[in-house]
């Protein structure tokens, strides 16, 4: 791998890579995005605003009651091999 051909190939690739970077609107791996929501918000509030403090504590989805739900967006992502479907487990 240290022969001159490999060195030339590397040098050529690097040169063209550097040229690409210098040009505007260059190669970018797709899908760059803005980040939000990564910052942790104050999670330590009492019950995180979702449950009132009283009486909810016995709420506990057991395995049985789970089978119903997943009502998210994944079912709307149709795929050739059916990965988007959410069948009850």
């Amino acid at each position: 791998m240290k022969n001159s051909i490999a060195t030339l190939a590397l040098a050529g690739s690097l040169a063209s890579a550097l040229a690409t970077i210098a040009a505007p609107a260059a190669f970018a791996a797709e899908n760059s995005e803005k980040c939000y929501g990564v910052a942790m918000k104050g999670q330590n509030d009492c019950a995180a605003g979702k449950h009132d403090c009283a009486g909810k504590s016995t709420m506990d989805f057991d395995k049985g009651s789970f089978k119903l739900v997943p009502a998210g967006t994944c079912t709307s992502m149709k795929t050739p091999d059916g990965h988007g479907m959410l069948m009850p487990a």
Partner: protein
Amino acid sequence: MSLDTQTRFAVALTDPAAPVPKGLASWTGSQPERRFAVYRNNVIAALTGALAARFPASQQIVGEAFFAAMAADFIRAHPPRSPLLLSYGDDFAEFVERFEPAKAIAYLPDVIRLEAARGKAYHAADVASLDAATLAALSPARLADLVFVPHPSLCVLRSPHPVVTIWAMNAGEAALQPIANWAAEDAMVIRPHLIVEVRRLPPGGAAFLQALAQGTCLAAAVDIATEDADAFDLSANLAGALQSGAFIAFR
């Protein structure tokens, strides 16, 4: 509180089947059981909130109710080991992988891994990325042995699922629509400045970056990437890596 009391108290908090710790008293006169139940609920609700904040796209995919129930099971099996909530859920993906009700959503663990990597990148050290221009001055003879130092926020993820597309659609980065091309996707997570970026990697890109990040020299990394994917394009991948700030130095 003795250590023993503390331990029993902590165990009972996340285990609903455990008896209420001995010696609890309540000044209001209502049973300590009811007071302790409120405490139990708050612990689960707060930690569920922490997981939902860290894995919003995953929550979006399965829905709030499913996510909350799955999180509660995880919290009971893996209570926090550190007071830092920002690292809580590092092993959530492995848990979900074995979580029976989520088996139908085979890609969910990889979406969780991607979100976990984003959180880590967000909290990684701030370091300026390598200025690509410094490479131009190198003698060609040195290139083959070049070793790069990865940016502390860099994470490369490989998935047999279109994980970047699925994540982007559920994080509000892309419109939700049918995925016509259900193909494997590799992702790069990086935070060169203030913003965490997720990039879809071209063929061989993940193998290339992983090799370089482990300290493999450039020539060997190129061999590994070419082995991984015939279509590996060295020039495009070098440009992509340098441009996204994946490295901070070379030697």
